């Protein structure tokens, strides 16, 4: 057990290190902007005095290393700064209650997690079932059709799938709403209904890859002697796959599931924009367009953290599902 624990701790430390380096990259990228934040915040109202005041207020006169450490220190504590749009708004209205980036992101983050959760709940069982069926009936009409269908849905851009679904399920046959109108205290059923169309879109995009990998992982094992043995003793093909092939194919399958959940994080941006889903991806794209640097920085950090975390999970789970590592000699 100790070797496994050590490997996992190593991976965790490596993941943390990666995250720190990524945060440095993000910070450096943002700080390579020409001009400076103060001017960007004030926009057209940038008189020299105001710029100087803002500079001292948000500490732009400090050297970059100090600023990075302060930013990181704040980010760890959940303080991601104040968005430019909000800062502008408060200077215009003269009010003093600042809405921080963290306040803006928190509810949207929950929404995005909900979307990703619904997607995973549909996609993972569907993909694994279809993958097992494709492996069971390999080289049949079903397998060929599934192959063509999955290749096409992997290749389609998310917005194509999204608009096709909107056209058929929301506009021509009004079954589901085409815009995901989500607000804070919504009943669970309504919320699920509003989320279903974006979740279906993501499912179609993600399922294909997981299914192909499940099929490939199982088929890879079918040539092994112990499968031959199970077949020869008269087991039914389904039982051979479920009892003998699947447990050994679990490591690559779990790995690909985790990787695809990580991919969801990227896919979520486009899908949220299509359905106007109030998630973090939508906020990110809006902030990119108005160059709201603190929000962009914060969203980027969150996306990167989630991505690294899921990749790490994939790594650790594939270690854990390997019996040779779990029970060392």
């Amino acid at each position, binding site marked *: 057990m100790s070797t496994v624990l050590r490997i996992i701790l190593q991976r965790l430390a490596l993941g943390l290190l*990666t*995250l720190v*380096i*990524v945060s440095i*990259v*993000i910070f450096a*990228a*943002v700080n390579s902007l*020409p*001009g400076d934040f103060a001017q960007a915040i004030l926009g057209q109202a940038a008189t020299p005095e105001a710029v100087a005041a803002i500079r001292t207020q948000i500490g732009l006169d400090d050297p970059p290393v100090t600023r990075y450490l302060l930013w990181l220190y704040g980010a760890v504590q959940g303080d991601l700064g104040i968005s430019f749009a909000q800062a502008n708004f408060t200077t215009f209205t003269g009010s003093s209650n600042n809405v921080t980036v963290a306040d803006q992101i928190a509810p949207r983050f929950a929404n995005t997690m909900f979307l990703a959760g619904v997607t995973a709940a549909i996609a993972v069982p569907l993909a694994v079932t279809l993958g097992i*069926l494709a492996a069971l*009936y*390999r*080289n049949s*009409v*079903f397998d060929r059709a599934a192959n*063509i269908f999955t*290749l*096409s849905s*992997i*290749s*389609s*851009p998310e*917005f*194509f799938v999204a*608009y*096709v679904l909107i*056209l*058929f399920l929301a*506009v*021509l046959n*009004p079954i589901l709403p*085409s815009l995901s109108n989500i607000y804070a205290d919504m009943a669970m059923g309504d919320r699920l209904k509003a989320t279903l169309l974006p979740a279906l879109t993501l499912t179609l995009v993600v399922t294909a890859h997981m299914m192909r990998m499940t099929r490939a992982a199982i*088929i890879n094992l*079918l*040539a092994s002697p112990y499968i031959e043995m199970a077949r020869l003793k008269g087991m*039914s*093909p*389904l039982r051979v796959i479920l009892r003998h092939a699947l447990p050994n194919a679990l490591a690559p399958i779990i790995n690909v599931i985790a990787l695809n959940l*990580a991919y969801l*994080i*990227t896919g979520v*941006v*486009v899908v949220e*924009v*299509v359905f106007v889903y109030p998630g973090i991806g939508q906020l*990110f*794209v809006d902030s*990119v*367009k108005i*160059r709201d640097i603190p929000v*962009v*920085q914060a*969203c*980027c950090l969150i*996306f*990167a953290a989630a*991505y*690294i975390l899921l*990749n790490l999970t994939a790594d650790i789970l594939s270690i854990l599902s390997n019996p040779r590592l779990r029970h060392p000699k």
Partner: protein
Amino acid sequence: MSVWLWIVLAFVGMGALAWAGRWAGQVATSNAPRFRDMPFGVAFGYVFAAACIIGGIWLWFLPGAVFFRWAVQGFVLFAIAAFIFRLVFRHVGTAATKRLFRAMPLTAAFGILVIIIYAILAIFAGAIAPYGQSEILGAANVVPGGDPAMGGNPLYPLGTDQIGRDILSRLIYGAQNTVGIAFVTTLIAFFLGGSLGFLAATVGGWLDQLLSRAVDVLMAIPGLIFSLLLMTIASVWADGEKALLTVYMILIIAVIDSTRVFRLARAVGTGIVVMDYIEAARLRGEGMGWIVFREILPNAMAPLLAEFGLRFCFVFLTIASLSFLGVGIQPPLADWGTMVRDLGPFINFAAFAPLVATAPLMAAGAIALLTVAVNFVVDWMLQKSSGLKE
């Protein structure tokens, strides 16, 4: 919610039908092996396929299902075209290409055919397109067909977009811009990632470590997110210069995607570097350039070529997504991602006139079709080179 109930009921009904059908078959043929040994899954499959065919025929004759009819017609047409294409090239050309086409699955023939069509459209866009890509011609009317009763004009067969540009011309020019830019980006990514990867494999040591760790960090950030962040910064740098922003976008995506190429090139390269002929070249006193480009590159061509196809798909989809989000290829250049973004909202009016959904779906479908085609070809190449049978 009743829709979901119907779906569940349909599946249960099909299951029952499959069970009954198998039982009836067993009784009628007095346990012929075909029915006796049939698993339930296969029986269900037959019923499901029959249901799909009946449903398809019903949809075909439904007056409102115009898109379904188009999709089926397009599918059949392309299948026939791919079949004829394969048939022709089985008898025309050199012996090598004849052999290639003889063993080719229909999907790969379809892929090659589509890629050729796109290449022709992209190269000769200026000659094929009836109008200029940013020429504002008349009133906006996104209904295709040019039916004057619907406010259309027969001069613009696919209609005109939201500011009155010919949609057909923009679709054709889109092949040039979108595909061309994606192709250039992939080439740069390959040159960058490939040469650095081979260099890391040949030199090894601290250079290898440095490059590999840098690539690890870059790959830890999701690609689309990182390119969006960098595009924000690039848009400040470009300061409203649209052509410059497009150049920045090409460079950003090329650098981000070159990390994947680097990984592959390094992995393939380290396998080749230990070969005897590299040793011989080193002893001959060849320089680094010779070793990388004349010794390693030709031997790493097969996996790199397959990767080129896949990478092109990813780059193409990333650029389309960026354009769709409004930070990619900038107007007035015609580009499919931007077209979907501009024309997409019209889909919400499809309840009144279903045809308004044609233009955005065609632009998005053009992207999908090319990536599907490239994927089919790459799939076939990988299958051929790996010799995977079962």
